[in-house]
């Protein structure tokens, strides 16, 4: 009985520990001025404030940067997964592990490397897209590759033997059969690019400030209400992304 009570207590404590920051983020967005420990006034002034052009532009920028980055990431992810799943070449395993290596390295380190390696792109939209590409594409590639490489080689051979070319086999057999991995990769890519902060902070251009950067900047100036609104938007987008990944994997992951 004692053990049971202790377990419940630990679970509750951990839940509060994890959920408290998220809940307070939402509270920040609906409390006009947080002067005392427990707020006594609620309102939507911060939600109305984000309709100002500068904030709307941040939202627009976020989706442009995330959209353009995701297009590059998805094309690369599909092409790379196909290459690593169906072709054999010397150094394949080594190259694959190298491509995945940014997943194990800090975003800050990768950003620093990008700034030094691609000087002409410094502080441009191109650099922001490249940053997202380098950080996010390995995760997307992992998803897509694991899905594509599970397709039985016999199915591919059967398609060829029926007169289907490589392109036709890719379009009619490989893509449909790996669609759950590809869809999950697309959703993951959009979700990660929208909420990327650490890499964007190192690489951003003043014309292309995104929501996560705004949250950070607002936080440093003490304007927590706007930061709360943007954070809530990001939490909702992230939760929707996670839900969509699960839904897509569940729905299309089985035949």
């Amino acid at each position: 009985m004692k053990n049971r009570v202790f377990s419940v207590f630990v679970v509750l404590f951990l839940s509060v520990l994890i959920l408290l920051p998220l809940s307070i983020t939402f509270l920040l967005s609906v409390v006009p001025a947080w002067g005392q420990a427990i707020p006594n006034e609620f309102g939507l002034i911060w939600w109305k404030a984000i309709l100002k052009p500068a904030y709307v532009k941040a939202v627009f920028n976020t989706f442009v940067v995330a959209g353009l980055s995701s297009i590059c990431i998805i094309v690369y992810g599909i092409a790379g997964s196909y290459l690593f799943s169906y072709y054999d070449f010397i150094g394949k395993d080594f190259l694959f592990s190298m491509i995945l290596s940014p997943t194990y390295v800090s975003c800050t380190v990768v950003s620093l490397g990008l700034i030094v390696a691609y000087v002409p792109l410094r502080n441009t939209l191109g650099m922001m897209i490249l940053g997202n590409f380098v950080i996010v594409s390995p995760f997307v590639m992992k998803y897509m590759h694991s899905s594509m490489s599970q397709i039985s080689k016999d199915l591919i051979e059967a398609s060829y033997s029926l007169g289907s070319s490589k392109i036709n086999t890719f379009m009619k057999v490989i893509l449909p059969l790996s669609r759950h991995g590809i869809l999950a990769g697309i959703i993951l890519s959009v979700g990660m690019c929208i909420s990327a902060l650490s890499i964007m902070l190192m690489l951003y251009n003043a014309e292309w400030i995104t929501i996560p950067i705004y949250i950070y900047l607002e936080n440093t100036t003490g304007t927590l209400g706007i930061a709360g609104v943007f954070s809530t938007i990001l939490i909702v987008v992230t939760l929707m992304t996670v839900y969509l990944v699960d839904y897509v994997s569940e729905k299309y992951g089985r035949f």
Partner: protein
Amino acid sequence: MEDSKIGVKVENLSKSFGSDQIIKNLNFKIMNGEFMTLLGSSGCGKTTTLRLILGSIFPDEGKIYLDEEDMTDIPCHKRNVGIVYQNYALFPHMTAYRNIAFGLEVKNEKDIETKVQNIMEKLNILGLEDRYPNQLSGGQQQRIALARTLVVEPKVLLLDEPLSNVDAKLRYELRSEIKTLQKSTGVTTLYVTHDQEEALIISDRIAIMENGEIIEVGSPGDLYFNPEKEYTRDFLEIVEKKLENLEDFRKKRGKIR
């Protein structure tokens, strides 16, 4: 059979994977319309030989001729060689109809619907058009796989242990159907199996394989009654143990023919 053209000719074929030589200087011919079986224990190189003829892998040395045309360097999708796998390899995202029509659609054939209906009728699978592979039994899946391969009228039909995944009763039925279909379509067929009894019953000729080489080729009767090689005698001996006597063997073979 002696006067007919050669359907498949394999000349000095060799294939290695890394340092392992799987196929060693392989030579054999299959006459047009003939049903030949590659018989050997697991890992002897039967499936590799099949995949070399299919064109999904290429030999290190040697030549492959189909209808007396050199196909050694021709890719799989241009060879018109059909294959039926042990695991059926049906496209899981397509219905039975779409699976069968796949090859015809790829080739932009006319009267696809009629051709699909005809082959489905021949294989007694009408009514399964809208079912997905996971809604079909093993036997039904194997029939769909056969229909999908035969509907495009391949030059050569390759069968890679197609009856290994079905129960004994169904195996007997399908064995008979395969033989009947092969006779009626006249398609040159290479059958791969490790089942001695199956090979003796279904084949026109059998090639015994061991360690990437063909040990002996002959008709089922020749190999069964007068094997030249010790290995063939030992390998086929098990059939006598399975069947009570030679009369049983003749009866089984008679039913198929």
